[in-house]
């Protein structure tokens, strides 16, 4: 299996705080990898590093065999990296369709074709009926979905999903999981950060666990969930 994303000795300091501390991991092409860890473990920082929003203090990131360390977010986007934001960020004064079109323009320069592409993505997410509503009028669940639609509109090779199901109810969660599966079937590599472990466990081929900026475990979901170190990281341990 070819390697889609490879992270080596990645480190990021904020002032005196080391938010990500020497993390290594690989994501194979077509894989879904879950990134988990308790609050403050450094997951979002890691995402921001991989998507170019932060520059690593040390370490390298490579994408499909090419070193992309330190590239800006839009350059990475053009190379096929697409991400969602934990706090969703629609463009409020644009309509749903127009929001997605911004991304679609990356591959389709003409207005009509971008519109068609955006409509196609919205249809995939079952949002075509809301295409002409202003994004500011959407509910939180719809916004989360729009966030995914925007990310997909780039036709990414690597998709980074940051808590796309938190705050959704059960049926919405199920629908989103279904969408993610379908995206993967389309050949997209996916890294997903999620607090709801159920989702991660059900979706991921592999799981990487972070705590205090360090990788503490990696492996199959079932194995990782039993790892005492992981349980301790989440629930705390008696001896400390």
């Amino acid at each position: 299996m070819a390697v889609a994303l490879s992270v080596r000795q990645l480190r990021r300091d904020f002032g005196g705080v080391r938010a990500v501390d020497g993390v290594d991991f690989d994501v194979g092409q077509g894989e879904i990898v879950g990134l988990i860890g308790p609050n403050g473990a450094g997951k979002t920082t890691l995402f921001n590093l991989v998507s170019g929003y932060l520059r690593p203090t040390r370490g390298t990131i490579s994408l499909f065999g090419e070193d992309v360390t330190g590239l800006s977010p839009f350059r990475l986007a053009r190379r096929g990296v697409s991400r969602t934001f934990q706090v969703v960020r629609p463009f409020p004064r644009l309509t749903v369709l127009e929001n997605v079109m911004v991304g679609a323009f990356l591959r389709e320069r003409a207005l009509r074709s971008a519109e068609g592409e955006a409509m196609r993505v919205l249809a995939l997410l079952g949002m075509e009926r809301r295409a002409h509503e202003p994004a500011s009028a959407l509910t939180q669940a719809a916004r989360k979905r729009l966030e995914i639609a925007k990310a997909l509109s780039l036709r990414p090779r690597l998709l980074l999903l940051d808590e796309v199901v938190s705050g959704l109810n059960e049926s919405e969660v199920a629908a989103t999981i279904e969408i993610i599966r379908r995206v993967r079937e389309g050949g997209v590599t996916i890294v997903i950060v999620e607090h709801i472990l159920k989702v991660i466990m059900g979706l991921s081929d592999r799981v990487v666990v972070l705590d205090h900026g360090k990788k503490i475990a990696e492996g199959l979901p079932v194995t990782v969930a039993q790892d005492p170190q992981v349980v301790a990281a989440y629930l705390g341990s008696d001896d400390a």
Partner: protein
Amino acid sequence: MLEVRDLHAAYGDAPVLFGASLSVKEGEIVELVGSNGAGKTTLIRCVTGLLRRRRGTIEFKGDRIETHPAHEVVDRGIACVPEGRQMFPSMSVEEHLLLGSYLRRARSRRAENLSRAYELFPRLKERRRQEAATLSGGEQQMLAIARALMSEPRLLILDEPSLGLAPVVVGQVFRTIAEIRKLGMTILLVEQNVQKTLRMADRAYVLESGRVTLTGTGSELLGNDLVRKAYLAL
């Protein structure tokens, strides 16, 4: 003492709480557990007045406080150690403590409370002139707790006090909380580290997707597999 009923809340258009209820009685230590995104911090923000609730009531010592701004809630006797400690980066340790007793009703015994705080946290006394930004995470957490105590609260709310701290420091923090508890303080604790804290708690609530799904005494819940599941969201 604190009675939250059917609380609904949202950030902007994004609803987070869907009718959560809980109560804290005088002298109790009550714990609120739940996975991230379940709405724990949102609930705390509503209680402290930092976030206006959509629906529902919050009662403190018999008075409705859900429409009070935060500074009035503090005045009524609820102090909060917020998530992430929330320091004033370029103010000194002592200035933090003085601000803690900003309220008029706490000013008269300011000197007394200050020396008591230094007694409780001798480390802070050593660093009283130092700016908060230069303190370690553990020291900042201690300062946040000491600052909250300066307002002479009746109810102390602690939101994830162990967040981002090294395991050794986490132990210190919990020991401190236990000590404060011994002084007779009523405490509402939000924690991730359930193994350790449920033991201290008189009662606990499990919050899932904006609703309370489970409640019981600390030790009951400690053995309950459902908590483990809720927490890990398995």
